């Protein structure tokens, strides 16, 4: 009778790199409890890796000595912790009230036509991932979206083309 493999998942953990560890160590000085560092560590790893793979999540869990299940709970609670690979540039597209009034639906179809992706999808060249977001806090200049770290306001089909072109040419 063979026994089931039980949670020996730590062997699948990715060894965090020196930069990640240095940043996580810094966060640990700011909180009294390691559990509180979990979210920051996820953000740090995402910054370096683009997303949080199972192996990375287990690596963090091992490093901080937190249960992987708890960390998974944190990681999946926040929509912007990516548990799947994303493109080089994540488009956070606001589809909330103000942007909707200002015609964001047309902008969205334009993105869809231009890039060939819908919400949650990544372009074949791996450049863009499109994700909806409820508000970016810039309603007076709606419609808005973020591409990577940059906020783009008063979107028009033309400005979208320009943004895409600029990103592509980088």
């Amino acid at each position, binding site marked *: 009778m063979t*026994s089931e493999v039980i949670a020996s998942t730590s062997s699948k953990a990715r060894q965090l790199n020196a930069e990640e560890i240095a940043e996580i160590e810094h966060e640990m000085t700011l909180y009294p409890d390691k559990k509180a560092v979990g979210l920051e560590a996820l953000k740090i790893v995402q910054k370096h890796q683009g997303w949080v793979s199972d192996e990375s999540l287990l690596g963090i869990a091992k490093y901080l000595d937190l249960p992987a299940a708890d960390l*998974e709970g944190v990681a*999946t609670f926040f929509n912007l912790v990516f548990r799947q690979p994303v493109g080089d540039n994540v488009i956070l597209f606001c589809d909330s009230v103000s942007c909707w009034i200002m015609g964001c639906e047309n902008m969205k179809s334009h993105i869809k036509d231009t890039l060939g992706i819908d919400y949650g999808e990544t372009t074949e060249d791996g450049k863009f991932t499109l994700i909806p977001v409820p508000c970016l806090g810039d309603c007076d200049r709606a419609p808005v979206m973020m591409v990577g770290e940059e906020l783009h306001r008063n979107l028009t089909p033309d400005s979208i083309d320009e943004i895409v072109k600029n990103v592509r040419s980088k």
Partner: protein
Amino acid sequence: MAKIVIDGVDYEVNPDNNLLQECLSQGLDLPYFCWHPCMGSVGACRQCAVIQYRDEDDDKGMLVMACMTPPTDGMIISIEDEQAKSFRSNVIESLMISHPHDCPVCEEGGECHLQDMTLMSGHNYRRYDKEKVTHRNQYLGPFIGHEMNRCITCYRCVRYYDDYAGGTDLSAQASHHHVYFGRHEEGVLESEFSGNLVEVCPTGVFTDRTFSENYTRKWDLQTAPSICTGCAVGCNTTPGERYGTLRRITNRYNSDVNGYFLCDRGRFGYGYSSSDQRFADPLQRKNETAEIMDDSAVQSMLDGFSSENTSVTTIGIGSPRASTEANYALRCLVGADNFFSGMSDEEFESANLILQLNKDKAFHSPSIREIEQADAILIVGEDVTNTAPRIALALRQSVRNKAMELADQSRIPRWQDAAVRELAQHDRSPLSILSGYKTRLDDVADDEIIDSIPRLASFAQAIAGSLSGKAEQIQVEDGQVAAVEKIAEQLKSAKRPLVIAGSSQGAELIKAAANIARALGESRADGAIDLCLLTPEVNSMGMAMLSTEENSLGAALEKLRSGEASKVVIVENDLYRRAPHGLVDEALEKAEQCLVIDQLPTATTAKADFVLPCTAFAEQESSYINYEGRAQLSFQVHRNHARAKSSWQWLSAATEEGIESLMHDCADAVPGLAKLCEILPDKSQFVGGMKVPRQSHRYSGRTAMKSHLGVHEPKQAVDSQSVMSFSMEGISSQKDASILASSWSPQWNSNQSISKFQSEVNGELKQGHTGKLVMERNAEGAYLEVSVSEDSSAELQLSRAHQIFGSDELSSRSSVIKQRMVGSYLGISEEDARSKRIRQGDSIAIVGVEASLSACIRSSIKNGSAVIYCDETMDSHSLPRSINISKSNNEVQTGIKGLIISDLMDEDN
């Protein structure tokens, strides 16, 4: 007490509890999901909304959540108000939006809290016709099934599994309508208490896989109140039977013992009772074959063993896994002088010591309810999670008493679960563990002293010395003195300190633990000290009370070997698990006639001249005595359709009279068991010839069940011996909780109906106490001499490990339990492993002992000590106290895959 008005009626309620709890205590119907009697309130589900009025002139009122509201004097509330009713109905409609319409194929159907609450809230028709959210289910191991689509996100599962039971591998994931309760990835749920999820989940998300495989609706199960035979705690259970086999085991509420929860050994370890290996007929060995014996042959064979009919000496060997009656009937057959302990000699020595300490008035043996009240705990050498699992779950509540104290100081009600946890953070009441290795309670332990057994004994003696002010007794390394003083001080300053020890590591640690408790008692003026002494098996205590101290198993084997006795009757015992194999072989070969009564084939039955089949725990009425000295009666659930009888029926002449006369004889004959008969039901409560039905009033299909044999429904079997009947007819006991198999109340079909039977929520059952503490505590004791000498003849000092799945003989023969078992292993330190060039999982040989074990390299283990777990095949009683090891080329069969310990070194180390 606070006086409040609910819907125009005055009630007196306890202001320390929340309003929901008090409504339920008053017998009122108020729906709820996220609240659980053991887990306090978080206000997550919004189902228990009531209207609270400012004063008598207020006719509007405001909605409050009853579970989050403390009752105050003069409070006026309404459950029946239309606004409250419509709010509750809307809440449940929203909760149910993605709930599937699969009640007919759901295991929970018919005993589902969600069904009950839906009806109670008046949400009868669904309006939502859009797409439902669906989830992927996970494989969670052989015990628990997962059906996430049924989830209504009440969060009870994680609050139980993580917060209450200390599990770490189940979590709430994602957010809003995607909330998911599961593991990080598929795999076995690690907690030893995972089975309670089945009862904690208000609907069918977590299901009992053993039940699903042989599914029967709750109302079609034949049940009776039973006692778990998995360990010495004696949890109260309700096994359910249909078509002649057990289908599942559920918890049976007992306010002193198990409360609402069981361990997974107890819940899932019953499969052996329907094993096809069970003996069906009396057998006689003739040369190499076994022949079936007829009844008259059996009778004359039994007569031949009776002390009255034979001139040669017949000895009887009892068993700690057999009932008090089985052991007593054997003792009557062979005579008290010829009745021998069926425990290993080391265990018997410990059991006798525990028996003696259980009569000592300096100590009190705490029930689980009392263990939960401890605010400083010291465990001396016992791996409680693996030897008496339910107590480990209780200890996880004891360490929260610090949080309760902080809550009281901050005037936060104790039932405000999230607030109290937030307030306390990592503050816990001190739990100190002395052990040979890291145990499963290490995450809640304040101090862990990990060392060899003799050194733990001297550490424990040092604590006793510190408490009693005998400095000469403090003989530990300089670095450990501070730890000794700290633990002593924690125990001394606690309101209710608790010392736990057990027979796992031999008698010396028990003596040292008793010395600590005695010294503690002398330093305080408030009566007996809680000293919880654990024996390994369901009736170790009863067995020890029935045999004299000289009548050890070793003495019995010697009597057979020397020819002083030539016949032996062995009851429900495999001697190869109890004594060195060589000694058993020799004794059984020498015996002229050997009769073994047991359920399943063992190495011992293979050597027997006669084998009589005996009934499994649920097929017989019998009593057991737990670690506290609590005698409890276990009723027969169903009949065994083969020729098996209970051991006491085979051995006692008075078989037709039932268990009563035997128990009365036993109570008269055995010192210390005088109160045994007080656990028998009071027959005067039964009128009109009516008994307590084992079948529910909704039991169906009695004709259909046997229609493949004939269309006429056969007469139901008559139980002439019990107060219970194999029938739906009769009347449930209104006066005796020990005959209450399961609870049901109109509108309450789930296990939550128990609140209708409690004097108040979490209180004693209305029908009274079950079980009886039989020990009299009137002896004056003294400090005990503790031997702390090491056996330095070999390199590694041994301590013993036990496994919740594997160490108990019977449950380990169930197929689902086998899936969780590991092979024999030897836990060693990293350095000792390196010096022998042993890597994780390698096969190890012990010099001079025939055995092959897996290496289990653990970071916690001290150099020079080792912990051994012996599976059932190993000749574990031949092992010396210290051993030399080497790497072996033999292949290990099972290995340590699946072992759940926190300090296992990674394989690449």
